[in-house]
């Protein structure tokens, strides 16, 4: 079975900028995959190469086994892309836009599916409204609908929720998750890490055009060793625990322990010092911790060069 997305040793330069520097990536069919990275890391460049909006300087990319350069018609038919920029054709209504997009993909009578997509994205009321008259959020919905008119097996969303209200995010993710359950592969880039954490089963992190982390979301979360404990104490933190303290505000302390096993000795220390624990909460690591750590480590490694 061909991977949904196969990227091998891909390089892309823009002038002196090495936007992608030997990227290797395989995304299996049916995955919900997240591509994360700071601005300028190369996420959109990679998506543009997959979509044929840019051409690679080296390496190969394919969608379900179809090379995006040599077999561009097949690969584009299999791909639905929601671009990052809020673009629209000012001459047409929502329905005309979706019908034209269907036609570009060779679909003649597609109204049943167009109606369904509009329904799921709350666009039905706006079907006959000119694109110019829509709000930003509504235009974004049309962009999502346009990417889905041909029921692409691989859906690419490039920061689809940037500047979008909570309601649309909810409706959109429900619909995309349903498509994912039905077997569509989803590749998502986003700046909202909690979104990636909740939706993606696997994540790659990109920095300076290179993949610096690639694993299942769970493994990435587990890779944050240690745990953080927030304590409210009826007294002063014993000196033995000071090295673990990373924050203090009055009686509230935040400790970082090397592992869960270190929790019991720490509590024993407090008991021996006669300091009562009034409140205790364990903080779960989230993707933001992983993200910051990965980006920072890379930074430190990169510094000597």
């Amino acid at each position, binding site marked *: 079975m061909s991977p949904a997305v196969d990227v091998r040793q891909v390089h892309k330069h823009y002038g002196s900028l090495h936007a992608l520097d030997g990227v290797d990536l395989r995304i299996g069919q049916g995955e919900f995959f997240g591509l994360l990275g700071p601005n300028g890391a190369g996420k959109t460049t990679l998506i543009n190469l997959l979509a044929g909006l840019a*051409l690679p300087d080296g390496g190969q990319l394919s969608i379900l086994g179809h090379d995006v350069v040599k077999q561009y018609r097949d690969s584009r038919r299999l791909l639905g892309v929601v671009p990052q920029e809020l673009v629209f054709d*000012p001459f047409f209504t929502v329905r005309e836009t979706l019908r034209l*997009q269907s036609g570009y993909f060779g679909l003649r009578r597609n109204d049943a599916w167009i109606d369904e997509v509009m329904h799921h994205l709350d666009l039905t009321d706006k079907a006959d409204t000119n694109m110019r008259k829509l709000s930003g959020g509504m235009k974004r919905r049309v962009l999502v609908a346009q990417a889905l008119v041909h029921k692409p097996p691989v859906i690419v969303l490039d920061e689809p929720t940037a500047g979008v209200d909570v309601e649309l995010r909810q409706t959109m993710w429900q619909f995309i998750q349903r498509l994912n359950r039905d077997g569509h592969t989803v590749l998502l880039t986003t700046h909202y890490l909690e979104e990636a954490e909740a939706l993606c089963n696997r994540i790659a992190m990109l920095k300076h055009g290179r993949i610096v982390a690639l694993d299942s979301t769970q493994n990435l979360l587990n890779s944050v060793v240690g745990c953080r404990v927030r304590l409210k104490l009826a007294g002063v933190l014993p000196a033995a625990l000071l090295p673990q303290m990373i924050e203090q505000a009055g009686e509230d302390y935040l400790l970082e322990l090397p592992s869960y096993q270190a929790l019991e000795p720490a509590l024993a220390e407090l008991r021996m010092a006669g300091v009562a624990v009034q409140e205790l909460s364990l903080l779960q690591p989230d993707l933001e911790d992983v993200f910051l750590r990965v980006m920072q480590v890379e930074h430190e490694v990169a510094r000597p060069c």
Partner: protein
Amino acid sequence: MLSFNTLLYKEVLRVQKVAFQTLLAPVLTALLYLLIFSHVLEQHVEVYPGVRYTAFLIPGLVMMSVLQNAFANSSSSLIQSKITGSIVFVLLAPIAYWEFFLAYVLASVVRGLVVGVGVYLAALWFAQPPLQFPAWIMLFAVLGSALLASLGVVAGIWSEKFDQLAGFQNFIIMPLTFLSGVFYSIHSLPSFWQGLSRFNPFFYMIDGFRYGFFGASDISPWFSLAVVAGCLVGLAGFTLALLKSGYKLRL
């Protein structure tokens, strides 16, 4: 095939949605030229024996409108969709580069011809040039507008801003049309300018087109046909190569 049909349909639909600007305005412009030039020159010039100046002028103005509008259509549609970013929808679709080329060129030919017919019909009120060889008229109108539409595709791809496109229009298209014999026969020019006119492809398009009306022309229509067809084949090849390479469209 449906991808191509849809893109062609979209381009024609665009023209129709802004018909006031794409169809009506150019007809009005041509009529103003006709009104002024015929009024000033009617008594002074007789280009072909027995042909009034106004009648002589009409085919030139019709062809000028056909050519300018064919160019304006593909170039402005491309630059608008590049600037608004909506060209991405076409670039993401499984449309071959040659389908892209044909759709933009054909839609522009359609606009050129519709404007041409409009100018012709409106001009009949002023004078009625004969229609000696309608097939020649059609042939030159189609080939000429396809040539300018192809040039429009190149200009639309190359330009990044509206003023670059305007430069293309003001410094290439306008001088070549005005120096091509729209308003005069090149035989009325001094020999230096006559010689120079022969390097202007627009001259052959206008002269061949006019032959279809009067059965008379400055040079053989067959020679004009060969020049126009040759230019079209060369430019179309160049444009297709540009599109295939993704120049300025697929970065």
